[in-house]
Protein backbone atom coordinates (compact mmCIF):
# COMPACT_ATOMS: atom_id res chain seq x y z
CA UNK A 1 0.00 0.00 0.00
CA UNK A 2 2.82 2.38 0.83
CA UNK A 3 4.25 2.19 -2.69
CA UNK A 4 0.86 2.76 -4.25
CA UNK A 5 1.49 6.45 -4.81
CA UNK A 6 2.41 7.21 -8.40
CA UNK A 7 2.25 4.32 -10.83
CA UNK A 8 -0.95 2.61 -9.84
CA UNK A 9 -4.01 3.27 -11.89
CA UNK A 10 -6.63 5.91 -11.16
CA UNK A 11 -8.47 2.86 -9.98
CA UNK A 12 -6.50 2.70 -6.73
CA UNK A 13 -8.73 3.47 -3.74
CA UNK A 14 -8.42 6.98 -2.34
CA UNK A 15 -9.65 5.70 1.02
CA UNK A 16 -8.85 2.23 2.18
CA UNK A 17 -9.74 0.57 5.48
CA UNK A 18 -8.29 -2.83 6.36
CA UNK A 19 -9.58 -4.83 9.23
CA UNK A 20 -10.38 -1.76 11.34
CA UNK A 21 -11.56 -2.44 14.89
CA UNK A 22 -12.36 -0.16 17.78
CA UNK A 23 -13.54 -0.64 21.34
CA UNK A 24 -15.14 1.68 23.88
CA UNK A 25 -13.94 -0.07 27.02
CA UNK A 26 -15.27 -3.63 26.72
CA UNK A 27 -17.74 -2.76 23.99
CA UNK A 28 -16.59 -3.34 20.44
CA UNK A 29 -18.01 -0.63 18.14
CA UNK A 30 -16.14 -1.63 14.99
CA UNK A 31 -15.37 -5.27 14.13
CA UNK A 32 -12.75 -5.79 11.44
CA UNK A 33 -14.27 -3.38 8.92
CA UNK A 34 -12.90 -3.34 5.35
CA UNK A 35 -13.82 -0.54 2.99
CA UNK A 36 -12.35 0.77 -0.25
CA UNK A 37 -13.51 4.02 -1.79
CA UNK A 38 -12.25 5.08 -5.22
CA UNK A 39 -11.82 8.67 -6.38
CA UNK A 40 -15.17 10.17 -7.34
CA UNK A 41 -17.09 7.34 -5.75
CA UNK A 42 -20.16 8.04 -3.61
CA UNK A 43 -20.72 5.67 -0.72
CA UNK A 44 -23.78 5.77 1.49
CA UNK A 45 -23.47 4.09 4.87
CA UNK A 46 -26.69 3.10 6.62
CA UNK A 47 -27.69 0.95 9.52
CA UNK A 48 -29.55 1.03 12.83
CA UNK A 49 -28.37 3.48 15.51
CA UNK A 50 -25.41 2.16 17.46
CA UNK A 51 -24.22 0.15 14.48
CA UNK A 52 -20.90 2.06 14.37
CA UNK A 53 -21.50 3.93 11.11
CA UNK A 54 -20.68 7.37 12.56
CA UNK A 55 -17.68 5.97 14.38
CA UNK A 56 -16.48 4.48 11.11
CA UNK A 57 -16.35 7.76 9.22
CA UNK A 58 -15.04 9.63 12.24
CA UNK A 59 -12.07 7.24 12.24
CA UNK A 60 -11.27 8.28 8.68
CA UNK A 61 -10.28 11.82 9.78
CA UNK A 62 -9.26 10.69 13.26
CA UNK A 63 -11.96 12.34 15.31
CA UNK A 64 -11.96 8.82 16.73
CA UNK A 65 -8.88 6.63 17.05
CA UNK A 66 -9.04 3.05 15.76
CA UNK A 67 -7.22 0.44 17.78
CA UNK A 68 -6.67 -2.30 15.25
CA UNK A 69 -6.28 -2.44 11.50
CA UNK A 70 -5.01 0.18 9.10
CA UNK A 71 -6.55 3.24 7.46
CA UNK A 72 -5.04 4.81 4.35
CA UNK A 73 -6.09 8.05 2.70
CA UNK A 74 -4.39 8.84 -0.62
CA UNK A 75 -1.68 6.36 0.29
CA UNK A 76 -0.92 8.01 3.64
CA UNK A 77 -1.49 5.86 6.67
CA UNK A 78 -3.45 7.33 9.57
CA UNK A 79 -1.27 6.85 12.64
CA UNK A 80 -0.30 8.92 15.68
CA UNK A 81 1.98 10.89 13.40
CA UNK A 82 0.70 14.45 13.64
CA UNK A 83 2.05 15.34 10.19
CA UNK A 84 0.06 12.54 8.60
CA UNK A 85 -3.09 13.44 10.52
CA UNK A 86 -2.74 17.03 9.40
CA UNK A 87 -2.04 16.12 5.76
CA UNK A 88 -4.99 13.73 5.67
CA UNK A 89 -7.40 16.16 7.34
CA UNK A 90 -6.53 18.83 4.78
CA UNK A 91 -7.88 16.51 2.12
CA UNK A 92 -11.08 15.67 3.95
CA UNK A 93 -14.04 17.93 4.59
CA UNK A 94 -16.52 16.93 7.25
CA UNK A 95 -20.17 17.86 7.75
CA UNK A 96 -21.74 17.13 11.13
CA UNK A 97 -25.24 16.32 12.28
CA UNK A 98 -25.35 19.44 14.46
CA UNK A 99 -23.56 21.68 11.90
CA UNK A 100 -20.93 22.76 14.47
CA UNK A 101 -20.63 26.22 12.97
CA UNK A 102 -18.68 28.73 15.05
CA UNK A 103 -21.46 30.82 16.60
CA UNK A 104 -19.27 33.82 17.45
CA UNK A 105 -18.18 34.31 13.83
CA UNK A 106 -20.22 35.50 10.88
CA UNK A 107 -21.00 33.09 8.06
CA UNK A 108 -18.23 34.65 5.99
CA UNK A 109 -15.73 34.40 8.87
CA UNK A 110 -16.70 30.76 9.42
CA UNK A 111 -15.76 30.11 5.81
CA UNK A 112 -12.56 32.14 5.61
CA UNK A 113 -11.04 30.98 8.91
CA UNK A 114 -9.74 27.64 7.64
CA UNK A 115 -8.27 28.90 4.35
CA UNK A 116 -6.58 31.85 6.09
CA UNK A 117 -5.12 29.87 8.98
CA UNK A 118 -4.18 26.55 7.42
CA UNK A 119 -3.72 27.46 3.77
CA UNK A 120 -2.33 30.94 4.50
CA UNK A 121 -4.61 32.64 1.99
CA UNK A 122 -4.93 36.41 1.97
CA UNK A 123 -8.19 37.71 3.44
CA UNK A 124 -9.47 39.04 0.13
CA UNK A 125 -8.74 35.77 -1.69
CA UNK A 126 -10.31 33.73 1.11
CA UNK A 127 -13.42 35.91 0.94
CA UNK A 128 -13.66 35.48 -2.83
CA UNK A 129 -13.40 31.73 -2.36
CA UNK A 130 -16.00 31.81 0.43
CA UNK A 131 -18.46 33.81 -1.69
CA UNK A 132 -17.93 31.37 -4.54
CA UNK A 133 -19.00 28.45 -2.37
CA UNK A 134 -21.80 30.41 -0.70
CA UNK A 135 -23.21 31.01 -4.18
CA UNK A 136 -22.84 27.28 -4.86
CA UNK A 137 -24.98 26.47 -1.81
CA UNK A 138 -27.27 29.38 -2.80
CA UNK A 139 -27.03 31.61 0.27
CA UNK A 140 -24.54 34.36 -0.66
CA UNK A 141 -26.95 36.95 0.81
CA UNK A 142 -26.43 35.50 4.32
CA UNK A 143 -22.67 36.10 4.37
CA UNK A 144 -22.73 38.84 7.01
CA UNK A 145 -25.15 37.08 9.35
CA UNK A 146 -24.32 34.94 12.36
CA UNK A 147 -25.07 31.20 12.19
CA UNK A 148 -27.80 31.32 14.84
CA UNK A 149 -29.74 33.84 12.73
CA UNK A 150 -30.16 31.21 10.00
CA UNK A 151 -32.54 28.27 9.67
CA UNK A 152 -31.23 24.76 10.23
CA UNK A 153 -31.11 24.00 6.53
CA UNK A 154 -29.22 27.21 5.83
CA UNK A 155 -26.77 26.46 8.64
CA UNK A 156 -26.06 23.03 7.24
CA UNK A 157 -25.46 24.50 3.79
CA UNK A 158 -23.04 26.99 5.36
CA UNK A 159 -21.30 24.04 7.03
CA UNK A 160 -20.98 22.31 3.66
CA UNK A 161 -19.59 25.49 2.12
CA UNK A 162 -17.15 25.84 5.02
CA UNK A 163 -15.75 22.37 4.32
CA UNK A 164 -15.57 23.07 0.58
CA UNK A 165 -13.50 26.21 1.21
CA UNK A 166 -10.66 23.89 2.24
CA UNK A 167 -10.97 22.45 -1.28
CA UNK A 168 -10.88 18.85 -0.07
CA UNK A 169 -10.84 15.82 -2.34
CA UNK A 170 -13.09 13.86 -0.02
CA UNK A 171 -16.22 14.86 1.87
CA UNK A 172 -17.59 12.99 4.88
CA UNK A 173 -21.19 13.55 5.95
CA UNK A 174 -22.24 12.37 9.40
CA UNK A 175 -26.07 12.23 9.34
CA UNK A 176 -26.27 15.70 7.77
CA UNK A 177 -30.08 15.87 7.74
CA UNK A 178 -30.92 14.13 11.03
CA UNK A 179 -31.14 17.35 13.06
CA UNK A 180 -33.25 19.18 10.47
CA UNK A 181 -36.96 19.86 10.31
CA UNK A 182 -38.55 17.86 7.48
CA UNK A 183 -39.12 20.87 5.22
CA UNK A 184 -35.42 21.71 5.27
CA UNK A 185 -34.05 18.28 4.44
CA UNK A 186 -34.57 18.71 0.71
CA UNK A 187 -32.50 21.89 0.36
CA UNK A 188 -29.54 20.17 2.02
CA UNK A 189 -29.92 16.97 0.00
CA UNK A 190 -30.13 19.04 -3.22
CA UNK A 191 -26.84 20.71 -2.30
CA UNK A 192 -25.29 17.30 -1.69
CA UNK A 193 -26.60 15.94 -4.98
CA UNK A 194 -25.03 18.86 -6.87
CA UNK A 195 -21.78 18.19 -5.06
CA UNK A 196 -21.96 14.53 -6.05
CA UNK A 197 -22.59 15.51 -9.66
CA UNK A 198 -19.44 17.64 -9.62
CA UNK A 199 -17.44 14.45 -9.03
CA UNK A 200 -16.63 14.79 -5.34
CA UNK A 201 -15.63 11.65 -3.47
CA UNK A 202 -18.23 11.29 -0.72
CA UNK A 203 -19.01 9.02 2.20
CA UNK A 204 -22.44 9.79 3.59
CA UNK A 205 -23.92 8.34 6.75
CA UNK A 206 -27.66 8.85 6.37
CA UNK A 207 -31.13 7.38 6.69
CA UNK A 208 -32.27 9.13 3.50
CA UNK A 209 -32.76 6.10 1.29
CA UNK A 210 -34.04 8.21 -1.61
CA UNK A 211 -30.70 9.99 -1.63
CA UNK A 212 -28.86 6.65 -1.49
CA UNK A 213 -30.87 5.33 -4.43
CA UNK A 214 -30.23 8.33 -6.69
CA UNK A 215 -26.70 9.29 -5.76
CA UNK A 216 -24.78 6.34 -4.33
CA UNK A 217 -22.41 4.14 -6.31
CA UNK A 218 -22.32 1.82 -3.37
CA UNK A 219 -24.58 1.37 -0.35
CA UNK A 220 -23.04 -0.11 2.77
CA UNK A 221 -25.17 -1.61 5.51
CA UNK A 222 -23.70 -1.86 8.99
CA UNK A 223 -24.99 -3.58 12.11
CA UNK A 224 -23.29 -4.22 15.45
CA UNK A 225 -20.01 -2.77 14.22
CA UNK A 226 -19.83 -5.13 11.25
CA UNK A 227 -20.18 -4.38 7.59
CA UNK A 228 -23.08 -6.65 6.72
CA UNK A 229 -23.57 -5.86 3.07
CA UNK A 230 -22.13 -3.60 0.41
CA UNK A 231 -23.69 -3.32 -3.02
CA UNK A 232 -24.72 -0.87 -5.76
CA UNK A 233 -28.13 0.67 -4.97
CA UNK A 234 -30.16 -1.32 -7.55
CA UNK A 235 -28.91 -4.53 -6.03
CA UNK A 236 -28.97 -3.28 -2.44
CA UNK A 237 -32.60 -2.13 -2.58
CA UNK A 238 -33.85 -4.58 -5.23
CA UNK A 239 -32.30 -7.78 -4.09
CA UNK A 240 -30.54 -7.59 -0.72
CA UNK A 241 -28.57 -10.74 0.04
CA UNK A 242 -28.61 -10.62 3.82
CA UNK A 243 -31.57 -11.19 6.10
CA UNK A 244 -30.56 -8.31 8.41
CA UNK A 245 -30.46 -5.89 5.50
CA UNK A 246 -33.94 -6.94 4.47
CA UNK A 247 -35.31 -6.44 7.98
CA UNK A 248 -33.70 -3.02 8.19
CA UNK A 249 -34.97 -1.92 4.79
CA UNK A 250 -38.47 -3.16 5.67
CA UNK A 251 -38.42 -1.10 8.82
CA UNK A 252 -37.29 2.17 7.34
CA UNK A 253 -38.96 2.01 3.94
CA UNK A 254 -42.43 1.34 5.34
CA UNK A 255 -42.56 4.75 6.98
Amino acid at each position, binding site marked *: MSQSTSTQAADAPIISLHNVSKWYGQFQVLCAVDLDVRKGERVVVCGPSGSGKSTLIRCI*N*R*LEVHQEGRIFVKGLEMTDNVKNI*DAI*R*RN*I*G*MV*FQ*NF*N*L*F*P*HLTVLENLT*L*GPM*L*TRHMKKADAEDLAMHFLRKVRIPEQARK*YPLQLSGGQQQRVAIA*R*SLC*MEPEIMLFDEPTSALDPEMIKEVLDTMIELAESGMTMIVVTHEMGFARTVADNVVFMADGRMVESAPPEEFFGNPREERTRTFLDQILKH
Partner: protein
Amino acid sequence: MTTASSQTRLVTAAYDPLARMSAADWLKRNLFSSVWQTLLTLVTAAVLLRFFWFVLDWGVINAVWVTSDPDVCRAATGACWAVIVEKHRPMLFGLYPYDEHWRLVLMMVIYLVTVVVSLMPRNWNLRFLVPLWLVAAVSIGVLMFGGVLGLRYVPTSEWGGLPLTMLLFTGTVLFGMPVAVLLALGRRAPLPVARGVSVVFIEALRGVPLITILFVAVNVFPLFLPAGVQVDKLLRITIGIAIFFACYQAEVIRGGLQAIPRGQYEAAASLSLTYWQTTSRIILPQALRICLPAITNHIIAAMKNTSFVIIIGLFDILTATTAVMQDPLWRKFYVEAYLFVAAVYLFFGYALSLYARKVEKWIASGRI
Protein backbone atom coordinates in the same frame (compact mmCIF):
# COMPACT_ATOMS: atom_id res chain seq x y z
CA MET B 1 -60.77 27.00 18.86
CA THR B 2 -62.04 27.51 22.41
CA THR B 3 -58.58 27.06 23.88
CA ALA B 4 -57.14 29.52 21.42
CA SER B 5 -59.66 32.24 22.27
CA SER B 6 -59.36 31.67 26.02
CA GLN B 7 -55.60 31.98 25.69
CA THR B 8 -56.04 35.26 23.88
CA ARG B 9 -58.27 36.46 26.67
CA LEU B 10 -55.72 35.44 29.28
CA VAL B 11 -53.06 37.39 27.49
CA THR B 12 -55.20 40.54 27.19
CA ALA B 13 -56.20 40.22 30.84
CA ALA B 14 -52.57 40.23 31.82
CA TYR B 15 -51.41 43.07 29.62
CA ASP B 16 -54.07 45.65 28.83
CA PRO B 17 -55.09 46.78 32.32
CA LEU B 18 -51.44 47.27 33.23
CA ALA B 19 -50.92 49.49 30.24
CA ARG B 20 -53.89 51.66 31.13
CA MET B 21 -53.45 51.64 34.89
CA SER B 22 -53.75 55.02 36.61
CA ALA B 23 -51.37 56.12 39.35
CA ALA B 24 -53.96 55.46 42.01
CA ASP B 25 -54.56 51.95 40.71
CA TRP B 26 -50.87 51.26 40.64
CA LEU B 27 -50.44 52.41 44.25
CA LYS B 28 -53.37 50.35 45.38
CA ARG B 29 -52.21 47.23 43.62
CA ASN B 30 -48.53 47.40 44.56
CA LEU B 31 -48.38 49.15 47.94
CA PHE B 32 -51.76 49.00 49.68
CA SER B 33 -53.44 45.82 48.49
CA SER B 34 -53.90 44.35 51.99
CA VAL B 35 -53.68 45.41 55.62
CA TRP B 36 -50.35 43.65 56.04
CA GLN B 37 -48.92 45.21 52.90
CA THR B 38 -50.19 48.66 53.88
CA LEU B 39 -48.46 48.32 57.25
CA LEU B 40 -45.22 47.22 55.59
CA THR B 41 -45.40 50.13 53.15
CA LEU B 42 -45.89 52.65 55.96
CA VAL B 43 -43.05 51.27 58.09
CA THR B 44 -40.65 51.18 55.14
CA ALA B 45 -41.62 54.71 54.15
CA ALA B 46 -41.01 55.94 57.69
CA VAL B 47 -37.55 54.34 57.84
CA LEU B 48 -36.57 55.68 54.42
CA LEU B 49 -37.81 59.17 55.24
CA ARG B 50 -35.89 59.20 58.51
CA PHE B 51 -32.73 58.08 56.68
CA PHE B 52 -33.02 60.62 53.89
CA TRP B 53 -33.78 63.36 56.35
CA PHE B 54 -30.60 62.48 58.26
CA VAL B 55 -28.56 62.50 55.06
CA LEU B 56 -30.01 65.85 54.07
CA ASP B 57 -29.69 67.37 57.53
CA TRP B 58 -26.19 66.05 58.31
CA GLY B 59 -24.76 65.94 54.84
CA VAL B 60 -26.15 69.11 53.27
CA ILE B 61 -28.07 71.56 55.46
CA ASN B 62 -25.74 71.68 58.46
CA ALA B 63 -22.58 70.66 56.61
CA VAL B 64 -19.47 72.79 56.42
CA TRP B 65 -18.15 72.85 52.87
CA VAL B 66 -15.09 75.04 52.89
CA THR B 67 -12.95 76.16 55.75
CA SER B 68 -9.35 75.77 56.79
CA ASP B 69 -10.25 76.11 60.44
CA PRO B 70 -11.19 72.81 62.12
CA ASP B 71 -12.95 74.68 64.91
CA VAL B 72 -15.61 75.87 62.47
CA CYS B 73 -16.32 72.20 61.72
CA ARG B 74 -16.39 71.30 65.41
CA ALA B 75 -18.98 73.97 66.06
CA ALA B 76 -21.25 72.71 63.28
CA THR B 77 -23.71 69.82 63.77
CA GLY B 78 -23.39 68.55 60.20
CA ALA B 79 -20.72 66.92 58.11
CA CYS B 80 -17.33 68.50 57.67
CA TRP B 81 -16.68 68.17 53.94
CA ALA B 82 -14.02 70.81 54.36
CA VAL B 83 -11.69 68.10 55.60
CA ILE B 84 -11.63 66.66 52.07
CA VAL B 85 -10.85 70.00 50.51
CA GLU B 86 -8.18 70.55 53.14
CA LYS B 87 -6.58 67.08 52.96
CA HIS B 88 -7.31 65.91 49.44
CA ARG B 89 -3.72 66.11 48.29
CA PRO B 90 -2.13 63.72 50.77
CA MET B 91 -5.21 61.47 50.49
CA LEU B 92 -5.03 61.30 46.71
CA PHE B 93 -1.26 61.29 46.33
CA GLY B 94 0.13 59.80 49.56
CA LEU B 95 3.79 60.38 50.34
CA TYR B 96 4.69 61.60 46.86
CA PRO B 97 6.62 64.88 47.18
CA TYR B 98 4.13 67.71 47.46
CA ASP B 99 5.70 69.95 44.81
CA GLU B 100 5.66 67.14 42.25
CA HIS B 101 1.94 66.37 42.51
CA TRP B 102 1.31 67.88 39.06
CA ARG B 103 3.18 64.88 37.65
CA LEU B 104 0.60 62.56 39.20
CA VAL B 105 -2.28 64.60 37.87
CA LEU B 106 -0.79 64.39 34.40
CA MET B 107 -0.15 60.66 34.90
CA MET B 108 -3.80 60.07 35.83
CA VAL B 109 -4.99 61.98 32.77
CA ILE B 110 -2.73 59.90 30.49
CA TYR B 111 -3.82 56.71 32.26
CA LEU B 112 -7.54 57.40 32.09
CA VAL B 113 -7.41 58.52 28.45
CA THR B 114 -5.44 55.38 27.52
CA VAL B 115 -7.84 53.09 29.35
CA VAL B 116 -10.98 54.74 28.00
CA VAL B 117 -9.65 54.73 24.44
CA SER B 118 -8.65 51.05 24.78
CA LEU B 119 -12.08 50.02 25.99
CA MET B 120 -13.85 51.27 22.86
CA PRO B 121 -14.47 48.42 20.41
CA ARG B 122 -13.60 50.55 17.40
CA ASN B 123 -10.04 50.84 18.73
CA TRP B 124 -9.58 47.08 19.20
CA ASN B 125 -6.69 46.75 16.85
CA LEU B 126 -3.28 45.67 18.09
CA ARG B 127 -1.48 47.91 15.60
CA PHE B 128 -3.03 50.85 17.41
CA LEU B 129 -3.25 49.56 20.99
CA VAL B 130 0.29 48.23 21.40
CA PRO B 131 1.98 51.54 20.47
CA LEU B 132 -0.60 53.42 22.53
CA TRP B 133 0.18 51.37 25.65
CA LEU B 134 3.92 51.58 25.06
CA VAL B 135 3.78 55.35 24.79
CA ALA B 136 1.48 55.55 27.84
CA ALA B 137 3.69 53.21 29.88
CA VAL B 138 6.87 55.11 29.03
CA SER B 139 5.38 58.53 29.74
CA ILE B 140 3.78 57.33 32.98
CA GLY B 141 7.10 55.76 33.98
CA VAL B 142 8.98 58.99 33.26
CA LEU B 143 6.41 61.04 35.18
CA MET B 144 6.30 58.72 38.20
CA PHE B 145 10.02 57.93 38.53
CA GLY B 146 11.50 61.11 37.15
CA GLY B 147 15.29 61.23 37.12
CA VAL B 148 15.28 62.33 33.48
CA LEU B 149 14.32 65.52 31.64
CA GLY B 150 15.13 67.54 34.76
CA LEU B 151 12.44 65.77 36.80
CA ARG B 152 13.36 64.88 40.37
CA TYR B 153 13.78 61.13 41.00
CA VAL B 154 11.02 59.63 43.17
CA PRO B 155 11.53 56.00 44.35
CA THR B 156 8.56 53.61 44.41
CA SER B 157 8.60 53.69 48.21
CA GLU B 158 7.30 57.26 48.00
CA TRP B 159 4.57 56.52 45.49
CA GLY B 160 1.07 56.59 46.83
CA GLY B 161 -2.58 57.45 46.71
CA LEU B 162 -4.87 57.03 43.75
CA PRO B 163 -2.08 56.71 41.11
CA LEU B 164 -0.63 53.81 43.10
CA THR B 165 -4.06 52.16 43.28
CA MET B 166 -4.44 52.58 39.51
CA LEU B 167 -1.00 51.14 38.76
CA LEU B 168 -1.49 48.15 41.07
CA PHE B 169 -4.91 47.44 39.61
CA THR B 170 -3.74 47.72 36.01
CA GLY B 171 -0.68 45.58 36.71
CA THR B 172 -2.86 42.97 38.37
CA VAL B 173 -5.27 42.69 35.45
CA LEU B 174 -2.69 42.99 32.64
CA PHE B 175 -0.42 40.38 34.19
CA GLY B 176 -3.13 38.28 35.88
CA MET B 177 -5.50 37.73 32.95
CA PRO B 178 -2.99 36.00 30.63
CA VAL B 179 -1.77 33.86 33.53
CA ALA B 180 -5.38 32.99 34.35
CA VAL B 181 -6.05 31.93 30.77
CA LEU B 182 -2.89 29.79 30.68
CA LEU B 183 -3.76 28.15 34.01
CA ALA B 184 -7.31 27.43 32.87
CA LEU B 185 -6.05 25.93 29.61
CA GLY B 186 -3.35 24.03 31.48
CA ARG B 187 -5.90 22.44 33.74
CA ARG B 188 -7.65 20.96 30.69
CA ALA B 189 -4.54 20.35 28.60
CA PRO B 190 -3.84 16.97 27.01
CA LEU B 191 -0.36 16.95 28.60
CA PRO B 192 -0.40 15.48 32.12
CA VAL B 193 2.52 17.68 33.19
CA ALA B 194 0.72 20.90 32.25
CA ARG B 195 -2.38 19.63 34.00
CA GLY B 196 -0.51 18.72 37.17
CA VAL B 197 1.34 22.01 37.41
CA SER B 198 -1.84 24.04 36.88
CA VAL B 199 -3.87 22.08 39.43
CA VAL B 200 -1.19 22.33 42.12
CA PHE B 201 -0.61 26.02 41.42
CA ILE B 202 -4.29 26.94 41.49
CA GLU B 203 -5.25 24.82 44.49
CA ALA B 204 -2.22 25.83 46.57
CA LEU B 205 -2.61 29.57 46.01
CA ARG B 206 -6.40 29.61 46.14
CA GLY B 207 -6.28 27.85 49.49
CA VAL B 208 -4.31 30.53 51.33
CA PRO B 209 -5.33 34.09 52.24
CA LEU B 210 -4.10 36.90 49.99
CA ILE B 211 -2.25 38.43 52.90
CA THR B 212 -0.11 35.29 53.21
CA ILE B 213 0.86 35.43 49.54
CA LEU B 214 1.80 39.09 49.88
CA PHE B 215 3.80 38.34 53.00
CA VAL B 216 5.72 35.67 51.10
CA ALA B 217 6.25 38.00 48.14
CA VAL B 218 7.59 40.73 50.37
CA ASN B 219 9.49 38.95 53.13
CA VAL B 220 10.27 35.40 52.00
CA PHE B 221 10.81 35.73 48.25
CA PRO B 222 13.93 37.95 48.57
CA LEU B 223 15.65 35.20 50.60
CA PHE B 224 15.65 33.00 47.50
CA LEU B 225 17.25 35.60 45.28
CA PRO B 226 21.03 35.49 44.76
CA ALA B 227 22.93 38.09 46.75
CA GLY B 228 22.88 41.52 45.16
CA VAL B 229 19.78 40.89 43.09
CA GLN B 230 16.85 43.02 44.11
CA VAL B 231 13.33 43.08 42.80
CA ASP B 232 11.40 46.22 43.55
CA LYS B 233 8.92 45.80 46.43
CA LEU B 234 6.10 47.36 44.45
CA LEU B 235 6.71 44.97 41.56
CA ARG B 236 6.80 41.98 43.93
CA ILE B 237 3.52 42.92 45.53
CA THR B 238 1.88 43.54 42.16
CA ILE B 239 2.90 40.07 41.03
CA GLY B 240 1.61 38.63 44.31
CA ILE B 241 -1.81 40.22 43.90
CA ALA B 242 -1.87 39.31 40.21
CA ILE B 243 -1.12 35.63 40.83
CA PHE B 244 -3.81 35.43 43.49
CA PHE B 245 -6.22 37.09 41.06
CA ALA B 246 -5.14 34.71 38.30
CA CYS B 247 -5.90 31.58 40.34
CA TYR B 248 -9.48 32.64 40.99
CA GLN B 249 -9.95 33.91 37.46
CA ALA B 250 -8.55 30.65 36.05
CA GLU B 251 -11.34 28.68 37.67
CA VAL B 252 -13.92 31.09 36.27
CA ILE B 253 -12.47 30.71 32.78
CA ARG B 254 -12.34 26.93 33.16
CA GLY B 255 -16.09 27.06 33.76
CA GLY B 256 -16.46 28.88 30.45
CA LEU B 257 -14.22 26.39 28.67
CA GLN B 258 -16.32 23.50 29.93
CA ALA B 259 -19.42 25.08 28.42
CA ILE B 260 -18.02 24.81 24.88
CA PRO B 261 -19.53 21.78 23.11
CA ARG B 262 -17.23 19.07 21.80
CA GLY B 263 -18.50 19.71 18.28
CA GLN B 264 -16.60 23.01 18.21
CA TYR B 265 -13.30 21.19 18.78
CA GLU B 266 -14.24 18.59 16.16
CA ALA B 267 -15.18 21.20 13.58
CA ALA B 268 -11.86 22.95 14.19
CA ALA B 269 -9.98 19.66 13.93
CA SER B 270 -11.68 18.81 10.65
CA LEU B 271 -10.46 22.17 9.30
CA SER B 272 -7.01 20.96 10.49
CA LEU B 273 -6.54 23.94 12.80
CA THR B 274 -3.74 23.51 15.36
CA TYR B 275 -4.29 23.47 19.13
CA TRP B 276 -3.36 27.14 19.49
CA GLN B 277 -5.41 28.21 16.48
CA THR B 278 -8.42 26.35 17.83
CA THR B 279 -7.91 27.75 21.31
CA SER B 280 -7.35 31.36 20.31
CA ARG B 281 -9.89 31.65 17.48
CA ILE B 282 -12.68 29.25 18.43
CA ILE B 283 -12.64 28.22 22.07
CA LEU B 284 -11.42 31.19 24.11
CA PRO B 285 -13.53 33.86 22.37
CA GLN B 286 -16.64 31.85 23.18
CA ALA B 287 -15.56 30.83 26.68
CA LEU B 288 -14.63 34.38 27.71
CA ARG B 289 -17.96 35.71 26.43
CA ILE B 290 -19.80 33.09 28.47
CA CYS B 291 -18.08 33.89 31.75
CA LEU B 292 -17.77 37.66 31.29
CA PRO B 293 -20.05 38.51 34.27
CA ALA B 294 -17.95 36.36 36.61
CA ILE B 295 -14.72 37.76 35.16
CA THR B 296 -15.95 41.30 35.82
CA ASN B 297 -16.77 40.28 39.36
CA HIS B 298 -13.17 39.27 40.05
CA ILE B 299 -11.77 42.33 38.29
CA ILE B 300 -13.77 44.59 40.59
CA ALA B 301 -12.62 42.56 43.59
CA ALA B 302 -9.02 42.93 42.36
CA MET B 303 -9.41 46.70 42.30
CA LYS B 304 -10.26 46.68 45.99
CA ASN B 305 -7.59 44.12 46.87
CA THR B 306 -4.99 46.72 45.89
CA SER B 307 -5.52 48.24 49.34
CA PHE B 308 -3.49 45.31 50.75
CA VAL B 309 -0.30 47.22 49.91
CA ILE B 310 -0.63 48.56 53.44
CA ILE B 311 1.41 45.57 54.56
CA ILE B 312 4.54 46.82 52.81
CA GLY B 313 4.06 50.35 54.03
CA LEU B 314 2.92 51.80 50.73
CA PHE B 315 0.18 54.36 50.91
CA ASP B 316 -2.61 53.66 48.45
CA ILE B 317 -5.65 55.88 48.64
CA LEU B 318 -7.17 54.02 51.61
CA THR B 319 -3.99 53.76 53.67
CA ALA B 320 -3.03 57.32 52.82
CA THR B 321 -6.38 58.51 54.14
CA THR B 322 -5.92 56.56 57.37
CA ALA B 323 -2.51 58.18 57.77
CA VAL B 324 -3.78 61.67 57.02
CA MET B 325 -6.55 61.27 59.55
CA GLN B 326 -3.98 60.92 62.34
CA ASP B 327 -3.74 64.71 62.24
CA PRO B 328 -5.12 65.65 65.72
CA LEU B 329 -6.76 68.81 64.38
CA TRP B 330 -8.89 66.95 61.86
CA ARG B 331 -9.07 63.37 63.14
CA LYS B 332 -12.63 63.84 64.40
CA PHE B 333 -13.82 63.97 60.79
CA TYR B 334 -12.56 60.61 59.60
CA VAL B 335 -16.08 59.50 58.59
CA GLU B 336 -16.23 62.20 55.93
CA ALA B 337 -12.76 61.31 54.70
CA TYR B 338 -13.59 57.61 54.40
CA LEU B 339 -16.88 58.42 52.68
CA PHE B 340 -14.83 60.28 50.10
CA VAL B 341 -12.55 57.26 49.59
CA ALA B 342 -15.61 55.02 49.35
CA ALA B 343 -17.01 57.36 46.71
CA VAL B 344 -13.78 57.09 44.69
CA TYR B 345 -13.85 53.27 44.84
CA LEU B 346 -17.57 53.27 44.03
CA PHE B 347 -16.99 55.53 41.04
CA PHE B 348 -14.40 53.21 39.48
CA GLY B 349 -16.18 50.01 40.53
CA TYR B 350 -19.48 51.18 39.14
CA ALA B 351 -17.86 52.42 35.94
CA LEU B 352 -16.37 48.94 35.50
CA SER B 353 -19.69 47.18 36.00
CA LEU B 354 -21.50 49.61 33.68
CA TYR B 355 -18.88 48.94 31.04
CA ALA B 356 -19.17 45.18 31.55
CA ARG B 357 -22.93 45.41 31.11
CA LYS B 358 -22.37 47.33 27.90
CA VAL B 359 -19.99 44.64 26.68
CA GLU B 360 -22.60 41.97 27.45
CA LYS B 361 -25.07 43.94 25.32
CA TRP B 362 -22.56 44.20 22.47
CA ILE B 363 -22.02 40.45 22.67
CA ALA B 364 -25.75 39.75 22.65
CA SER B 365 -26.26 41.97 19.62
CA GLY B 366 -23.32 40.35 17.81
CA ARG B 367 -21.34 43.59 17.65
CA ILE B 368 -18.29 41.90 19.17
